[in-house]
């Protein structure tokens, strides 16, 4: 044993013990102070005879047998949670809800994992119900050895587990001209986050002899829409995965059972569901939705294509239009909580503004901070009754990106972009504690050369 090291360890252990005991002493001192108050005055409510039946009366669930363990052998949420669901709007429905989206209740989400039943669901030809025994993955094109795998064979490859969000690039896409949804679920819920298990595509390719002319990979679904997208080789050889596991169980059909592509941080539609084929070529495919949709039209008339990563973004989740402050009293300490995420890297910090993004203070990150993953953040606030606030959060990542203001983003990409909106978002706290979705933005005009400018400015 390295004596020196062990002494150091002991020393540090001793320090830890001391630190703990100081903390503990501190805690007890405070508690003792409270106890004195409790004894001197009284911390009990005056009417001791009465009381709330929730406490005074025996409950049925506290006295009678519960359900046998044989019931619900695949577990269900409490039936009291029946309002916690994905939701949809007919505005974004096409084809009897077969080319549609149902979005995640972020207001009811805790931590950084979305339960599988609440993971947002977007499909182009309905949710396919695939028999895994009959499903195959085929790899073809510019490879020396094309390959067919059964699902059982695919799962023999060494597995990788990663936690990543998936976001539809149309998240927030209805609000380029102004706020539309007084709802966190609809304003920001076109995304979810899960722990995925699968295989690196590069691990399968190692034995297949990818030819050097291969610059692009086609990923194609086996559903009726045969959704497909072109992925550049660099991503394929970096962190692209074929996943079958979602939060410790099989993918749900809504997420592409039995397998989907996962390109961490990139547009949800690139993570092709019900995946059945990978093809390699020297030129891109211009797939069905690759240019017709999922492109960002700028005021110049040029549209951005192959816009892969969802940029750095954040939102306040509590309070939100769904979680208001109407029950708070003057002076209450309340936690302002939110999510931050970036498809371009790891969140490095989040700032919070009380005046709509004019001035910021630093919020604290909390919990796990992982690359291309939801990150929780928090700020402790003292509620002042009747005080109006404009709560705006602003995240930054380790790639050097920070969320733009609405004006900064729109002066470049205009208001017809549809996709990839990541400007800061604002909730207004009203005098009564209700929360309203607002935006802080200038009015725009166009110069004769087409450039967008702030109204009234030369």
């Amino acid at each position, binding site marked *: 044993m390295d004596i020196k090291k062990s002494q150091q360890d002991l020393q540090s252990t001793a320090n830890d013990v001391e630190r703990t005991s100081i903390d503990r002493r501190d805690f007890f001192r405070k508690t003792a102070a409270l106890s004195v108050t409790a004894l001197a005055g009284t911390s009990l409510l005056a009417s001791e005879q009465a009381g709330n039946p929730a406490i005074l009366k025996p409950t049925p669930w506290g006295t009678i047998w519960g359900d046998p363990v044989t019931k619900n052998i695949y577990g269900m949420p409490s039936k009291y949670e029946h309002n916690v669901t994905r939701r949809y709007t007919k505005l974004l429905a096409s084809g009897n809800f077969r080319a549609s989206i149902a979005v995640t209740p972020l207001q009811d989400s805790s931590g950084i994992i979305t339960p599988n039943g609440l993971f947002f669901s977007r499909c182009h030809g309905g949710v396919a119900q695939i028999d895994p025994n009959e499903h195959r993955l085929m790899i073809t094109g510019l490879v020396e050895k094309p390959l067919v795998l059964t699902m059982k064979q695919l799962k023999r490859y060494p597995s990788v587990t990663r936690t990543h969000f998936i976001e539809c690039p149309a998240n927030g896409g209805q609000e380029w001209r102004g706020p539309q949804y007084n709802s966190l679920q609809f304003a920001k819920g076109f995304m979810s986050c899960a722990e995925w298990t699968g295989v690196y595509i590069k691990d399968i390719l190692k034995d297949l002899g990818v030819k050097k002319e291969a610059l692009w990979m086609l990923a194609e679904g086996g559903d009726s829409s045969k959704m497909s997208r072109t992925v550049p080789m660099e991503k394929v050889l970096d962190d692209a995965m074929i996943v079958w596991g979602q939060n410790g169980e099989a993918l749900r059909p809504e997420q592409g059972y039995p397998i989907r592509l996962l390109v961490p941080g990139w547009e949800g539609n690139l993570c092709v569901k019900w995946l059945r084929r990978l093809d390699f070529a020297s030129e891109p495919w211009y797939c069905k939705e690759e240019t017709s949709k999922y492109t960002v039209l700028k005021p110049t008339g040029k549209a951005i294509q192959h816009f892969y990563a969802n940029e750095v973004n954040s939102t306040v989740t509590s309070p939100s239009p769904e979680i208001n402050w109407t029950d708070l009293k003057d002076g209450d300490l309340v936690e302002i909580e939110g999510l931050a995420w970036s498809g371009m890297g790891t969140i490095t910090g989040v700032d919070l503004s009380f005046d709509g993004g004019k001035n910021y203070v630093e919020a604290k990150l909390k919990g796990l901070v992982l690359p291309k993953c939801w990150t929780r953040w928090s700020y402790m606030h003292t509620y002042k009754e009747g005080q109006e606030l404009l709560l705006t959060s602003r995240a930054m990542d380790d790639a050097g990106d920070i969320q733009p203001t609405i004006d900064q983003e729109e002066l470049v990409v205009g208001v017809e972009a549809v996709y990839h909106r990541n400007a800061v978002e604002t909730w207004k706290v009203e005098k009564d504690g209700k929360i*309203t979705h607002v935006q802080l933005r200038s009015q725009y005009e166009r110069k004769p050369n087409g450039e967008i400018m702030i109204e009234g400015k030369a």
Partner: protein
Amino acid sequence: MMFKLNKKLLISVSAAAVLSLGLSACMESASPEKSSIQIKKDIDGGVSDTLANDKIGPYYVNTNAHKVDVKYGRAPTKAEYDAWNTDVMPDGTGLPKGQGTADEGSDIYDAKCTMCHGDFGSGGGGYPALSKGNAYDLHKTLTNQRLKPDEDGPVRVFGSYWPQVTTLWSYIKDAMPHPDTGTLTDDQVYSLVAFILNANEIKIKGVEVDDDYVLNRKRLLEIVMPNRHGFEPNIDGPNGPDNVRKFYANPKNFGGQTYDVKNPASRCMTNCQKPTAKVVYIQNGGINDFHPPLSNVKDLPKKKASHGFDAKKAYTTNCAMCHATDGMGAPVMGDKAAWAVYTAKGMDKVYANGIKGTNAGMPPKGGSDLSDTNFKSVVDYIISKSK
């Protein structure tokens, strides 16, 4: 040997990365708005962790598992390969031979497409329009920005927006008709493409695709779409991936903002909004058509009303999209004459057609998952409203 090829590719990719980084760094130092950011960026403009000390970022890795060539599966047979190798590329790779005219396409369109895409591709029922008129004229609208409610926005339909005509061909072949994909022959697809080219007034080598123009593989590949060069970055050719990397290395190209990662304290903390920015509220109630309605109440779910099946509601959910409006090709609820044609053949026939679907475009049970009994009561409801 295979692995060597891969390695070579990896090296060429990273060499390209270094080159483009060098370029963007030069561009940035030449720019008056200097930036001190010097991070190695991925192709998407982001950064990612590399393997170090058996970890990638926060994740432990069994490096032994990823060093070896794991081999499972088998080669596809020729027949298997051909069955799935149906992708079509802009240079014509994968595009089969065949032909058709807009006239022929028109008949197929009326039978299989109108109910969703409307007359002449005008759109409807939540499905996209396929044409809004002359593609060359409408292409000019792409610089439009609807800054005020009364202004015209850009028209983004096939003719005016899509850069490649092969995308339309494979879209129809792969994914249309929407409820019943993979059922069209190659000639039918050529006919439908001709019909849509016609509706968009697209010219092939200066010749308009009129009703009798015979579209075939060769002629289709001669089409240059009006918006062929309307997209950035340029992804074509051997420099495609490098162009993408360069484009995303500069957040100014896509409206992004940066801060100095090495000195985050320098980011804006005061007066970060333009003084012209005002609080804007949701107008006219915004969008609040939410299903189910928002609620955070914790209670027991309400018992479903036990008075049976709601045919009207089922109609609204499953049928109204096509049967509520004219121009979708389907008989409109309330149109006595239109429905009389069908009911004259007997209700059994009407039920059977509805349940099994028809070639005229009625999907089986309208695409619903209603039981036969419930579906029949929806049919009864529609007929009762059309007498």
